[in-house]
């Protein structure tokens, strides 16, 4: 035991009188629920909502479901230094200070999930004395105590932690406990009283109190401070005054206090070391009232887990966490408000059994309660329980009591076991059997009386396992009514059916009989069946089930019928209309044992799945099924009661629940949400630093399978916390996760995602913010921008290349085509007709033996051939060369035509001697055409051809004019020809012009004009050819490329 405080071990039987019987119920956690060790030395809730638990072996972080355990690793330089942890505190920077038994302090920084052994924290504790306590305030101070005296303070405001010893020279004081008051003052309590320091100037003691006392624990409430002293009980320091607080118990109570806390509801919790558990008081002025003692009870799993309490903390939801020697107990006030009576073996103030039946409210507000096997329990208004069982009464045949009733005359009647009706005398603890027979000789022997009620005339009506009975206690008359329909009537023996409940309708003077199997029977006070409401398979109007468990009037004309299997049926007695409420409407169970209405108009139904609360206003169904709130999920028939003070009572197989719905508070504290784990490709991923620093997690494209665990930090009923989440970037909507605390995403495409999760506590209060985890999944390199750019550049380059190749090909192709047309033009110039005619002429001269003429002709002819061949080697030739060959050609034509041709060639002054280049073989075809088609067919007149060359700024302008028959007549003549008359020369020239014009910006153009004489007759043709002068340069440019 490390706590060596001066304490006297006493076993005092505390608070056995005057304490409320209401037991505080705890949720208990020990090693078997994941806690790393059962000795819990300190508890703290961090600002992010987790609860941290320091144990004798490891640090635990509790998220409502799981304990995440941090332990020291031997040989490692990081992590916790020691596993025996004694103190916890969170500083202003949200780092957790962890004090250990070996005297070390380790800092846990959630931003990198790292345990830091700050070098500055090494030197303060050379003796390696255990750390007793660590406290931190909101302004950045952290103070810790060493077990054998010595207090140290450090300011975490500074970039460097710089611990200083407090009160180093005060030999009269040895601190045991401390706390920061709401005003920021540091209170130290211990041997020698209390010292108050201002952490900003710690060298000076601001105030001292109780200097002769030993202060064991401090608790702060507003501006006042409670101090537990070893000898003077509880002291209250308020506004500069010290007062002793009167406690109902002994002053010894405070001798073994190890921790105290005033919770948010104003209760003072006192944690008692050395086997005395927890005491809770209500503070009324300077008095402590309503003491509740919480001790461990081995038979009550909801009792404090161990009587040796070591620490105590309240979380933000108001739950009180109690660390003990053998685990953790958590008191949850929101669960405690659901009153719960149980059977606790050995506890005389608990129910005699858990399986309860037949609740009945007495005139004094006590509640009578039958049971399956525990006789009768009377729950007094204060909460104490009185037992009436076979052991302490007379005349009760068995401990089975199904029904209890107090009639108008004050007599108690009890349906006991299978033995009929008994009169019960509580004062004398006596039961007397009603020994009575009907006229027919029937008795109540062997019958179970499930329900007892009374009509206005003092007659008891009994619902039994053998139908309906009437008993008149005044004259001891008993009647049995055979109310069964059809074949069940007039049986010699008693009918075998159960009447679950009989209720008297005073206004109608009718009895409402809930039968098991035959629906609801309405009977008059003479036992005549007035009406039977049952299941009707033919018509939809009818009950859902003929097994009626309870009949409860709601207003004058409505009956609520709880059924076994058909949910709740609502019968309107005026029009016979029946409505039903079943699992189809949201109930969790179709068995309704009992129905009670609260003042808000809600219907509370007991079932086999807990309590169901239906709001007729909204149609909503809520459930009360938390194990820490209801006795169990299964309730019992005939065991429901609304008392005069508005309390609803429901009994079941494991106790009784009672509560006033109007008093129930909900958990209005929105939970904090936290992401607890990230798994990438099913492997844990250290994400804390990203999570806490809000940095995105960057993953590769093949790390795209994420599983994210999260939690809602509401501890009241954490199993019922609900979640919704959304992966921004993928999910369009929030996904309702129900109670699932994990989300998985597979095959996430590259992109930026934000995972957001909200949580909601068991009362439907959603967290306002989201827990956020940003994940960036990088695109694979082939989808990165630089790769795409690269590809784009490559593509464009390829495209350009392809374009270049293609244009080159086209150009080559074009060159070929041009060459082809040039070749054709050459062939056109070497007109075979002309050539052979010319040779024919030479033949003529030879035959005529005119050698000179033949020679001259031959010379001219060969000269022309030479010129044509020469010109044809170039695409462009000088203008004068073209003119020269034209002249030669014309001379030859003139000879061929026996001189019957005049021609003239004129040249513009500017063109003389000028080096004008024109496309070769462009003009000649027009000249030939003029001779062949214009001049040769002429019948009269002298054929004349003129070629005129002129120059404009940009063009050479060539006019070939003849005085022939004109195009029209020539065409007519040609049409008569049978031989082919298409001038190949002309079509080749056109083709060449097209090719040249396609190539060059400046276009060649040819205009053909028909000449007319004054009478309008054709008198020749004029062909004008415009040749751009810079065509040649352009051509050269092309070639250089």
């Amino acid at each position, binding site marked *: 035991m490390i706590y060596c405080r001066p304490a006297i071990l006493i076993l005092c039987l505390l608070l056995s009188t005057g304490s409320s019987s209401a037991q505080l119920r705890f949720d208990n956690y020990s090693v078997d629920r994941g806690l790393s060790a059962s000795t819990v030395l300190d508890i703290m809730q961090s600002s992010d909502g987790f609860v941290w638990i320091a144990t004798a072996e490891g640090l635990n972080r509790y998220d409502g479901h799981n304990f995440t355990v941090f332990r020291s690793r031997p040989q490692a330089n990081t992590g916790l230094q020691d596993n025996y942890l004694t103190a916890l505190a969170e500083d202003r920077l949200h780092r957790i200070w962890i004090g250990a038994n070996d005297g070390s302090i380790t800092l846990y920084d959630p931003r990198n999930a790292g345990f830091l052994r700050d070098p500055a924290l090494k030197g303060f504790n050379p003796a390696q004395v255990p750390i007793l306590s660590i406290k931190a305030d909101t302004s950045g101070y952290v103070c810790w105590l060493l077990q054998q005296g010595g207090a140290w303070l450090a300011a975490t405001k500074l970039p460097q932690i710089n611990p200083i010893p407090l009160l180093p020279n005060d030999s009269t004081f040895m601190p045991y406990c401390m706390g920061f008051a709401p005003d920021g003052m540091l209170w130290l309590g211990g041997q020698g009283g209390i010292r108050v320091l201002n952490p900003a100037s710690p060298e000076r003691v601001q105030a001292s109190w109780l200097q002769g006392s030993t202060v064991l624990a401090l608790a702060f409430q507003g501006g006042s401070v409670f101090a537990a002293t070893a000898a003077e009980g509880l002291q209250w320091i308020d506004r500069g005054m010290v007062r002793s607080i009167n406690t109902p118990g002994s002053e010894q109570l405070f001798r073994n206090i190890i921790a105290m806390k005033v919770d948010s509801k104003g209760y003072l919790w006192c944690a008692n070391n050395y086997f005395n558990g927890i005491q809770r008081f209500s503070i009324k002025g300077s008095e402590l009232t309503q003491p509740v003692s919480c001790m461990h009870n081995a038979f009550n799993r909801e009792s404090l887990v161990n009587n040796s309490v070591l620490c105590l903390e309240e979380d933000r939801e108001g739950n009180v966490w109690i660390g003990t020697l053998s685990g953790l107990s958590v008191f949850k006030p929101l669960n405690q408000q659901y009153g719960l009576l149980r059977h606790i073996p050995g506890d005389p103030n608990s129910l005699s059994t858990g399986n309860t039946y037949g609740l009945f409210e007495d005139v004094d507000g006590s509640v009578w309660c039958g049971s399956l096997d525990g006789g009768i329990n009377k729950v007094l208004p204060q909460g104490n329980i009185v037992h009436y069982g076979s052991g302490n009464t007379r005349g009760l045949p068995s401990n089975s009591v199904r029904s209890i009733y107090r009639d108008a005359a004050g007599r108690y009647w009890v349906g006991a076991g299978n033995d009929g009706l008994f009169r019960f005398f509580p004062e004398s603890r006596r039961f007397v059997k009603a020994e009575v027979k009907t006229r027919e000789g029937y008795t109540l022997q062997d019958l179970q009386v499930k329900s007892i009620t009374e009509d206005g005339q003092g007659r008891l009506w009994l619902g039994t396992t053998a139908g309906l009975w009437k008993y008149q206690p005044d004259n001891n008359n008993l009647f049995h009514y055979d109310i069964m329909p059809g074949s069940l009537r007039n049986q010699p023996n008693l009918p075998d059916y159960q009447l679950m409940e009989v209720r008297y309708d005073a206004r109608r003077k009718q009895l409402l009989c809930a039968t098991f199997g035959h629906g609801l029977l309405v009977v008059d006070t003479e036992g005549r069946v007035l009406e039977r409401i049952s299941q009707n398979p033919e018509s939809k109007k009818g009950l859902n089930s003929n097994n009626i468990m309870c009949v409860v009037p709601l207003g004058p004309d409505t009956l609520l019928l709880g059924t076994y299997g058909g949910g709740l049926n609502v019968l309107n007695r005026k029009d016979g209309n029946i409505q039903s409420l079943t699992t189809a409407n949201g109930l969790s169970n179709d068995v309704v044992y009992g129905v009670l209405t609260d003042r808000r108009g809600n219907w509370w139904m007991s079932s086999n799945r807990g309590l169901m609360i239906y709001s007729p206003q909204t149609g909503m169904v809520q459930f009360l099924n938390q194990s820490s709130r209801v006795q169990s999920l299964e309730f019992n028939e005939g065991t429901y009661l609304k008392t005069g003070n508005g309390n609803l009572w429901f009994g079941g197989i494991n106790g009784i629940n009672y509560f006033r719905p109007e008093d129930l508070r909900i958990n209005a504290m929105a939970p904090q949400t936290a992401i607890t784990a990230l798994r990438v490709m099913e492997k844990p991923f250290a994400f804390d630093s990203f999570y806490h620093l809000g940095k995105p997690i960057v993953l590769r494209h093949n790390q795209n399978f994420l599983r994210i665990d999260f939690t809602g930090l509401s501890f009241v009923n954490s199993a019922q916390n609900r979640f919704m989440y959304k992966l921004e970037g993928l999910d369009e909507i929030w996904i309702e996760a129900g109670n699932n605390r994990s989300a998985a995403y597979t095959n996430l495409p590259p992109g930026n995602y934000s995972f957001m999760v909200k949580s909601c506590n068991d009362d439907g209060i959603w967290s306002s913010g989201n827990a956020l985890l940003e994940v960036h999944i990088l695109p694979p390199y082939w989808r990165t921008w630089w790769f795409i750019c690269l590809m784009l550049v490559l593509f464009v380059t390829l495209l350009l290349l392809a374009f270049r190749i293609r244009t080159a090909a086209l150009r080559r192709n074009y060159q070929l085509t041009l060459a082809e047309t040039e070749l054709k033009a050459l062939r056109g110039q070497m007109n075979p007709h002309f050539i*052979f005619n010319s040779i*024919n002429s030479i*033949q003529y001269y030879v035959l005529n033996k005119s050698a000179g003429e033949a020679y001259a002709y031959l010379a001219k002819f060969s000269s022309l051939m030479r010129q044509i061949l020469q010109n044809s080697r170039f695409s462009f030739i000088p203008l004068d060369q073209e003119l020269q060959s034209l002249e030669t050609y014309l001379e030859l034509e003139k000879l061929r035509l026996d001189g019957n041709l005049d021609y003239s060639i004129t040249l513009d002054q500017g063109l003389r001697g000028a080096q004008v280049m024109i496309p070769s073989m462009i003009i000649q075809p027009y000249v030939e055409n003029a001779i062949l088609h214009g001049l040769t067919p002429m019948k009269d007149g002298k054929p004349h051809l003129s070629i005129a060359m002129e120059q404009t700024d940009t063009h050479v302008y060539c006019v070939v004019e003849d005085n022939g028959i004109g195009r029209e007549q020539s065409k007519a003549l040609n049409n008569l020809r*049978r031989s082919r008359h298409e001038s190949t020369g002309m079509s080749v020239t056109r083709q060449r012009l097209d090719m040249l014009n396609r190539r060059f910006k400046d276009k060649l153009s040819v205009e053909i004009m028909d000449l007319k004489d004054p009478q309008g007759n054709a008198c020749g043709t004029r062909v004008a050819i415009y040749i751009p002068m810079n065509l040649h340069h352009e051509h050269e440019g092309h070639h250089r490329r």
Partner: protein
Amino acid sequence: MKAIIVDDETKSRQVLHALLELVCPEVVVAGEAADVQAGADLIAAAQPELVFLDISLKDGDSFQLLEKLPEMNFKTIFITAYDEYSVRALQFAAVPCLHKPVDPAELSAALKLLQKQSTATSASRVKEALLLLKLRFEALPVMQNGIQIVLPLSDLIYVEAMNPSTLLFATGNRLLNSDKHIDAYAQLLAPLGFVVGKRYCVNRKFLAAAYEDRLILNGGKTLLLKE
């Protein structure tokens, strides 16, 4: 033998005249003409046995001239400096045609050929050539049992050599006999888009597949290229 010369070039006429005197003194040139009308008039007036016709005339061509005549009771030799188009028709019809400058040997060969022919045969062959030109090579004139039939080329599926004559297979299961040699068809049809061989001239339009040794026609008929 009385002959006339129609040519638009004086020198050509004189050359031919001189050559005839040189090569075939029995041919007597009874007159010369330079254009279509003069030529026609001269033929009517002189009634020559033989006419030398230059295809291309000043004001038209010699086919126009022939069409002007009521009948052709003379033999004809065509002369041209260069006229591939018309020459193809003349060759198909086996009409003698000389090229300028005229080769004396060719001239005498042509004259010898015509001497063996009757005037009627010569005339009918000229008419055939004339018809082919008129049809612009879009259809073939085929003589069937003395009746001139015109077969559109688009209807001609193939020509098969039945040496020395030929068979023409046309659409609609038509089968025509021709006394022409397959070579005449080959020369005529090759430039017109027919697949031409020693045994067959096949219209590409009806050709489904061609192999080294056989041609498959649409419809599956197989023509073996070798015996």
